[in-house]
């Protein structure tokens, strides 16, 4: 049973430059306010969006020097929050989203991994993760089981 909010739907646009991610993320989080997510669910959404956006800026848009836009389309329904993140950057290698296996921590301190957690976090926190190349765009579709 959804909470009393009317069906929520919005689009946020941001440039592909690193500082824009903070602003775009804050805008998206503010637009989610009507869902009245508790702090834990809001944290989940913010983490997934941050990781996805960082990944796009780092990889898909690196070659374009951040001169293209990223769009976040969000829609809330009975299954939770559906998010489509669309960019015009280079395709994902292998034509699908990385599986996101976390790097092992069973190593000496000096070999402790500093990266490689992003996709692991996305897969852990999202119910569904799906990537599609549509024409010249990358579409990352996520379902977050929040606000149910």
């Amino acid at each position, binding site marked *: 049973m959804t909470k009393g909010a009317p069906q929520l739907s919005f689009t946020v646009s941001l440039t592909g430059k*690193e*500082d824009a*991610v*903070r602003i775009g993320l804050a805008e998206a989080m503010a637009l989610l306010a009507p869902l009245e997510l508790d*702090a*834990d669910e809001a*944290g*989940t959404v*913010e*983490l997934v969006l*941050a*990781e996805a956006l*960082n990944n796009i*800026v*780092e990889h898909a848009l690196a070659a374009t020097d951040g001169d293209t836009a990223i769009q976040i389309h969000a829609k809330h329904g009975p299954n939770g929050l559906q998010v489509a993140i669309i960019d015009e950057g280079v395709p994902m290698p292998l034509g699908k989203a990385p599986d996101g296996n*976390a790097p092992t*921590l069973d190593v000496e*301190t*000096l070999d*402790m*991994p*500093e*990266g490689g*957690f*992003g996709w*692991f*976090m996305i897969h*852990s*926190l999202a119910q569904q993760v799906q990537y599609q190349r549509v024409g010249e765009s990358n579409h990352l579709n996520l379902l977050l089981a929040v606000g149910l």
Partner: protein
Amino acid sequence: MELTSSKEPQVQIVTVQEQRIDASVALSFKDRMREITEGEKDTVVLDLNHVQFIDSSGLGAIVAAMKILSPERKLILAGLTPTVDKVFKLTRMDSVFGVFSTVEAALKDLKG
């Protein structure tokens, strides 16, 4: 990236005076941590109580800080707020670092 430092017997407390350690400031955090801890010998307690959010880049920067201090000095974490705690638990990094709810609790543990 604002970090402040204070001294206790045999401990350096570094407090992050920012709300976010994310991709846009991760490198700056790493550099500032290196600067502020340079030339000291003590265990570092990193007080994160002002930090409301870290992403995987922020986590990586904290790991990098630990590695810079290693092996002579330990990095201990205190004051993890809920979303920050979520990231450490999800990635199991809470088993790699000593984690305390407050600086006081960390200091007490170090004395004991």
